[in-house]
């Protein structure tokens, strides 16, 4: 701050000289004191500003990681999403809790996922600076893209069959999907990332008011569902990057989704 101080002195002296007031000590003192207001302690950024300052860094790190493991992401996001789709999802903080999961399951029973990739290409407006069509962790982004284009980018032919299979499996313990989802998130090799995704999903939802309002604004549970599935899929995906996942997905006892997932991994 010394350079700021000396530039303040220079400015004050220049101003005094210009006004022909070189002799006024009190005036000089007053001007310097005014200048010292530039050195007030700055408070911590509030939530909106904090998320602008740090949330983007977080976002950027997540995206770099996902980009690195893209092939895996593409293939397994589907699997993870399918598995979780049936059994319900609770990996993010978007849904209020058990009740939401039940409704989600009821919805999912009649719903055939036509998409093959979660978090399809077009990012929402808030993330337009990211060139890669990555599945963003924010519930808001997949939220915006999925309802609009549920068909997504077809890459995995295996998906539709499993879609049917999962659909019929019905509402097995949705709570179980929650545990694999959460435990994988905790233990995933990309733990910083995965944890960040599931916890950060909640955190960033809370922190970024704009984004947390998007599911509400979408106004329907399906959007929330898709967001959760996408985010949960991403959670599992990030964890899948590390080999630890395999044993974890089987942890949740029951869930035909879990069994199916296990089959797929073998």
């Amino acid at each position, binding site marked *: 701050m010394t350079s700021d101080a000396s530039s303040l002195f220079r*400015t004050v002296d220049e101003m005094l000289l210009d*006004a022909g007031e070189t002799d006024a000590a009190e005036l000089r003192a007053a001007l310097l004191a*005014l200048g*010292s207001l530039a050195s007030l302690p700055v408070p911590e950024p509030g939530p909106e500003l904090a998320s602008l300052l740090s949330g983007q860094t977080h976002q950027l790190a997540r995206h770099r990681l996902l980009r690195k493991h893209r092939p895996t992401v593409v293939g397994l996001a589907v699997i993870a999403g399918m598995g979780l789709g049936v059994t319900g999802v609770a990996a993010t903080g978007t849904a209020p809790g058990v009740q939401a999961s039940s409704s989600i399951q009821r919805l999912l029973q009649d719903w055939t996922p036509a998409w093959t990739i979660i978090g399809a290409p077009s990012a929402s407006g808030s993330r337009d600076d990211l060139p890669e069509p990555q599945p963003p962790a924010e519930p808001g982004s997949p939220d915006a893209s999925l309802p609009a284009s549920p068909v997504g980018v077809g890459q995995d032919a295996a998906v539709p069959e499993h879609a049917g299979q999962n659909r019929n499996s019905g509402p097995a313990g949705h709570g179980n999907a929650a545990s694999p989802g959460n435990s994988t998130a905790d233990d995933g090799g990309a733990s910083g990332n995965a944890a960040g995704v599931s916890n950060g999903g909640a955190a960033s939802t809370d922190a970024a008011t704009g984004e947390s309002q998007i599911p509400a604004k979408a106004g329907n549970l399906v959007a929330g569902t898709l967001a959760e599935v996408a985010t949960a899929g991403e959670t599992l995906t990030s964890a899948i990057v590390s080999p630890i996942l395999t044993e974890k997905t089987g942890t949740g006892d029951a869930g035909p989704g879990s069994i199916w997932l296990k089959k797929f991994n073998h």
Partner: protein
Amino acid sequence: MTDALTDDVLRARARDPELFSIVYRTYASQVLGYLTARGVEDPEAAMQEVFLAVLPRLHTVTGGIAGLRTFVFSVAHARMVDDHRRQRRTPLELPFEPELDGREETSAEDEVLQRISPQEVVDLLNVLPDEQREVLTLRLVGGLTVENAADVMGKSAGAVKQLQRRALIRLREQSAVKEYVAP
């Protein structure tokens, strides 16, 4: 930190979140000081709003660091004007913490500066007409040149210089009075 920012860096890293932090850290206290000196109702909140507006638009800034500073204070100025319009209906209040911190000065200057508290300074400023107050604040708290201050205020450099001179004369009269009444 300001030295590290050049026009090219600014343009290249316009959406880099680290740049956001650098810009914030560089200008936050000055913007806060400016808004405080200008009697904004909640200077800290207003300061944050300024950056919420400034940071996403960094990529539009031209003119290097000087241009950035001008831009930052143009937004702060607009925020201040907005605040004053609102305040006209409610009593003016200066929620000001009379604590100065973070300055490295020589001891002689310290003495001089300690004789006047920030609250006194703001009170002193209030004897000035709005535009004179604005010029002094932009120049001394915002660190703007005459030309940049003129940009922010939408005036010519000559007009700003006039306002500056008059402000100093007016202040001096106040200071002189203060000298006589000081205990």
